[in-house]
């Protein structure tokens, strides 16, 4: 992506920009739904609900739909494959900084050693209109990873809410094309100062922090892989997959063929999958690499917090707080009710000396 060359503009209201974007792109944004925010198609400003409150599902389900027909196949006089293709242009309007960082991580996953064409047919032409967070959500800890509340680069357009309108920064040629015809006034020095002070306030309001620096996490999990605290944690885990589906950097999917009874034709489709489900790591003869709940719980935690960084060079946790919010299990830790999936709490668990954990057997001795 183009490194940002900020060209700051002043925007009176979002409608002007939404209109301009939706003329060229199919536009999606966070919309209020049942008291929460969800990513849906948008047309006007009134429907948009920007702010730090994370949406239920992250925007990844627009770049990679939860269910997708990859291609249909037929064997009548030779084998034929027909791909539906995708020629629409997508715009993601109001992506928070943590989610932009998560999309960059997905880019590495789907564009690294193996390139996923189905992801890139949507991603390649996608316009990213990011939105800096001027307030902080209770569950978020983005400042610990430096994935928010401010976005520094990798956007096409970036909006920041000000007292009297919005500051609009252009980060790429693609973004420039969208705003070119709008004749927007340039931003003043005061606007830029206001942006800085608002983001500083948001930074200060983000109270939740990782107890250790992110760089130390790999060593921590390596050393304490057999920490006894994994056992009581896994004991209260539902293995329902809520943490992984709502995670903006989770990318696992399942592929299967739907064959017609004639066995001559069918469709190959994709569906999201989760490492928390028992069947996920099952292979032939019902062998399973992660049959125990504790193994699945460990896998998700360590993959997000340490292995993904080793594998792809970008953090697998961006601190959005969705897993904290949507985990249905709320165990008592350190005298407080906490969310089981909360990375901050899990790391705090790991920091406790192993000999202090009472009443649990070593993993391997007990089937959880």
């Amino acid at each position, binding site marked *: 992506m183009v490194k940002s060359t900020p060209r700051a503009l002043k925007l009176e209201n979002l409608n002007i920009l939404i209109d301009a974007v939706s003329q060229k792109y199919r536009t999606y944004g966070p919309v209020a739904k*049942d008291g929460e925010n969800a990513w849906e198609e948008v047309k006007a400003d009134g429907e948009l609900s920007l702010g730090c409150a994370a949406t239920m599902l992250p925007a990844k389900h627009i770049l990679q739909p939860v269910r997708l027909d990859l291609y249909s196949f037929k064997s009548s006089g030779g084998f034929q494959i027909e791909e539906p293709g995708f020629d629409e242009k997508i715009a993601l309007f109001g992506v928070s900084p943590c989610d932009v960082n998560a999309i960059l991580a997905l880019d590495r996953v789907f564009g690294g050693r193996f390139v996923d064409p189905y992801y890139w047919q949507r991603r390649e032409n996608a316009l990213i209109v990011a939105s800096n967070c001027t307030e902080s959500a209770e569950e978020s800890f983005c400042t610990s990873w430096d994935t928010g509340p401010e976005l520094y680069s990798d956007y096409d357009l970036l909006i920041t809410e000000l007292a009297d309108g919005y500051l609009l920064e252009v980060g790429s040629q693609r973004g420039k094309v969208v705003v070119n015809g709008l004749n927007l006034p340039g931003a003043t020095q005061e606007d830029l100062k206001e942006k800085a002070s608002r983001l500083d306030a948001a930074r200060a309001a983000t109270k939740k922090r990782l107890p250790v620096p992110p760089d130390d996490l790999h060593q921590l999990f390596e050393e304490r892989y057999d920490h006894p605290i994994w056992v009581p944690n896994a004991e209260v885990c539902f293995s*329902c*997959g809520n943490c992984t*589906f709502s995670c903006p950097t989770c990318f696992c999917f399942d592929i299967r063929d739907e064959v*017609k009874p004639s066995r001559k034709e069918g469709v190959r489709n994709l569906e999201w999958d989760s490492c928390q489900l028992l069947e996920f790591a099952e292979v032939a003869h019902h062998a399973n690499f992660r049959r125990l709940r504790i193994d699945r719980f460990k896998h998700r935690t360590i993959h997000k917090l340490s292995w993904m960084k080793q594998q792809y060079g970008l953090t697998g946790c961006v601190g959005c707080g969705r897993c904290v919010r949507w985990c249905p299990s709320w165990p008592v830790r350190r005298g407080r009710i906490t969310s089981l999936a909360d990375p901050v709490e899990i790391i705090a668990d790991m920091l406790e000396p192993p000999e*202090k954990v009472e009443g649990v057997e070593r993993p391997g001795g007990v089937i959880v």
Partner: protein
Amino acid sequence: MTANSNSNQKVKAAVFKFTCCAGCQFALLHFFDQQVETLELLDFVYFKMARRKELDEPYELAFIEGGVSAPEHIEQLKAIRKQAKTLVAFGACAAHGGVPAIKDWQTEIDVEERAYPDPLLVSSMKVSPVDEFVKVDHYLRGCPIDEVEFMEMIRSIAADKRPYVREHPVCLECKLKNNICILLMREGVQESMCLGPVTRGGCRVVCTSNMRACFGCRGPMSNPNIAEMVRTFKGKGFSGKDIEMRFTEYAGLSAEFREGARAYYERKAPYYKRKAA
């Protein structure tokens, strides 16, 4: 059970009803209207709700609807098993006993006295799922059965392959549909007693999409964490009776939900403690 496209032979199917409300059969009638493919793949030689014809020809595929609740049912069931190449438990009652099995948790004579003038007139017994007596090849769960799953089932049977039935929890489908979480959001009210995290999905979350908690009609998922479900309900302030009733409502005869119904009384919820620093 092979019906290749070349032979263009339909699978001969029969629908049998035991103890249930016949709602799944009714759903099947509805599919005739919605899914023409049903009639292209199956030839119903016996289906009381749809046609007057008596059972007078052999069949390969048997759909068993409802649980077993009378001694004569067992003989009939065994005879069907002998005839059918493939036997499908059709609906929540056949798979887990369903709503009729609520009476299994009470003394038999109390239930009979409430319904009949003289209990000696009936030879009723505890309701059991079909697989207590005969081998079941496939299960179509839910109250009523799901259209998509049913189509996948009969397509697979016609193509002689194993049907693709995921064993994921209801939570998965709720998340993929961008629904809000009823268990978390609707605190303290009866409607928040959602069994989603332990119940098998595949129902396309009709209840939770309409802000109703999951009743667990499809029975337990693979490897459900029942003890944690009980602890969660308890933490939300529900009584032991509430928890027992929720677990026994549709699939109380499954080993896992039976555990949930009893867990409240039998052992403490698995809170864990740490030594003071």
